[in-house]
């Protein structure tokens, strides 16, 4: 490719030990965040040392993007309510941080959140944190039960050209390290072994072998039209009646669900109002309520909103909102599976 920037040529094999030591060296300027084993699953959290990292994790309940970039709860303004009201704009808390081990689905989810928070209206908090965050992605080496990223082009290997900093691929005792940003190029001091054509072929083989391991799949071609024609398909009502609890677990664990509520909280002495933003969910019955009506009064309508917003509505941002992480399936207490709902609808379509 002509015009390729020098850092994009950096493809090297680095012994894992050396790589982890380099991560530790970043601790003096950055918070280090990564997957940590707790019980029989993993969570993204800040670590004191790379020794705590569990890079072989399968999936996590919460995505790093919605924990460390777009926060579940964020204070935005403080209003002093004595006499003439004054507004104190709360500055973003945006410490420099490195998030390591982010799987391709979750990187793609962050790129999706960028579309919401960094376009016409920039979210000051998200923007500040995004700037101060180094994202080191890790191509997947195992497929979890509900993963279907390979069906939607969001994994198991990352193909996005930019918007993150480094990409790792597990090469047994080494990582294949690819640099994806100027900042990473400046930070990364290790030389390692240059990855040539052979190593890149091994990487491609690894990806191919991973592709074959998926048990959950979805056919997204033509889904926009198929959904549009089946808005009253019995699967919506039936799933809503028999399974859905409107608990909103699906929305909370979804790495691309971006909806929020703005809430005001008055202090006990009535002198200060804090306006904060917190995650909200289309599964809540009040979500689309207006005076005199509710556009999604029916549970079936709310369930349909979630599923179609994930799989359809590509006209919103030109991409599908699902990254195939499968979290909404894993954490649904009644086992609702959007790939199954889709298949149910597709069965009625001529092949």
């Amino acid at each position, binding site marked *: 490719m002509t015009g390729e920037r020098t850092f994009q040529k950096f493809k090297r094999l680095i012994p894992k030990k050396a790589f982890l030591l380099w991560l530790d060296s970043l601790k003096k300027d950055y918070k280090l965040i990564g997957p940590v084993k707790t019980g029989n699953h993993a969570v993204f959290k800040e670590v004191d040392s790379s020794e705590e990292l569990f890079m072989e994790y399968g999936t996590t309940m919460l995505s790093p993007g919605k924990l460390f970039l777009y926060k579940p709860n964020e204070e*935005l*303004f403080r*209003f002093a*309510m004595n006499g*003439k*009201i004054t*507004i104190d*704009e709360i500055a973003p808390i945006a410490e420099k941080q490195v998030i390591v081990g982010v799987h391709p689905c979750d990187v793609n989810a962050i790129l999706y959140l960028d579309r*919401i*928070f960094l376009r*016409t*209206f*920039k*979210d*000051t*908090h998200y923007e500040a944190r995004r700037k101060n965050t180094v994202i080191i992605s890790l191509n997947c080496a195992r497929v979890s039960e509900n993963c279907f990223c390979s069906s939607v082009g969001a994994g198991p290997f990352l193909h996005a050209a930019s918007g993150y900093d480094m990409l790792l691929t597990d090469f047994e005792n080494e990582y294949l390290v690819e640099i994806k940003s100027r900042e990473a190029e400046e930070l990364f001091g290790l030389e390692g072994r240059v990855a040539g054509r052979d190593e890149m072929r091994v990487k491609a083989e690894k990806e191919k072998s991973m592709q074959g391991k998926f048990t959950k799949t979805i056919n997204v071609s033509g889904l926009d039209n198929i959904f549009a024609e089946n*808005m009253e398909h019995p699967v919506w009502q039936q799933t809503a009646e028999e399974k859905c609890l409107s608990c909103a677990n699906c929305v909370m664990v979804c790495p691309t669900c*971006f*909806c*929020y*509520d*703005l*809430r*005001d909280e*008055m202090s006990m002495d009535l002198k200060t*109002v804090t*306006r904060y*933003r917190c995650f*909200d969910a*289309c599964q809540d019955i009040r*979500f*689309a*309520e*207006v*005076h*005199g*009506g509710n*556009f*999604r009064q029916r549970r079936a*309508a709310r369930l*349909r*909103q979630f599923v*179609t*917003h994930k799989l*359809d*509505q*590509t*006209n*919103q941002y030109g991409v599908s909102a699902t990254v195939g992480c499968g979290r909404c399936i894993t954490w649904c207490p009644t086992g609702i599976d959007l790939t199954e709902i889709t298949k149910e609808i597709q069965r009625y379509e001529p092949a």
Partner: protein
Amino acid sequence: MNPLRPLTARIEDIKTEAEGVKTYTLSTKFPFRAEPGQFNMVGYPGVGEAPISLSAIMQDGSFKHTIKSVGRVTDFLKDFKKGDELFFRGPYGRGWPVKKAEKKDILIIAGGVGLAPLRPVIQTVLAQRESFGDVSLIYGARDEKNMLFMNEFNEWAEKTAVYLTVDEAVQPDRWKHHIGLVTDLIDRVKIKPERAIAFVCGPEIMMRFICRGLIIHGMSQSSLYVSLERRMKCGIAQCGHCQHSGLFVCKDGPVFSYKEVRGLPDGVL
């Protein structure tokens, strides 16, 4: 600056329009500019914000909101006095395609408080009357007590055709206009479909039947415009509350051509 940061506006005047409906004339430190059909997020710390359309955009940089008290924010606002400050941010959204309506016959059709977001259109038409063809206003409300801007109708009627209706008259002997649904009045207007454009605002079910009625009169879906109401928290296409299929009503609307929104799920158009 955080785009969700509200500004203060001083209430210069308050006028009672109808039962539970008041018009607030507001001024800010900087002249306020907006397009007819756009809206502000209006509110107060501790109470929250609600999307409210502009019912007038004045030459001097002040603006008006006509607000019916029906919810937490609007109920709170009803006790405000002249000289008080309230908070707002905006203007947001895509308004009425007034430019596109130039040289055309305009049908302005409203129900209840749906007349408020159309008043800036009427004012534009009155100010540049010669730029437009025949202009007809069709307006209906539950009864006379729920009608907005009644003392302005005479002035409007000098330059436009005004058709009024109520579902039920409180004083039938004094009510000189039609009694019945807004849709009844469509038949009274001579519509030349090829040169007509319609701006419609009211309850969604009303807009459904108005639009379908106008289509029967030969108008095309793309010459009908409706303004939608949805719950909104941000007004800037982030909070997700107003999503209507793939559309953000706050950013892509609130004014849409009927073609864009007809038959979408979770709506009645």
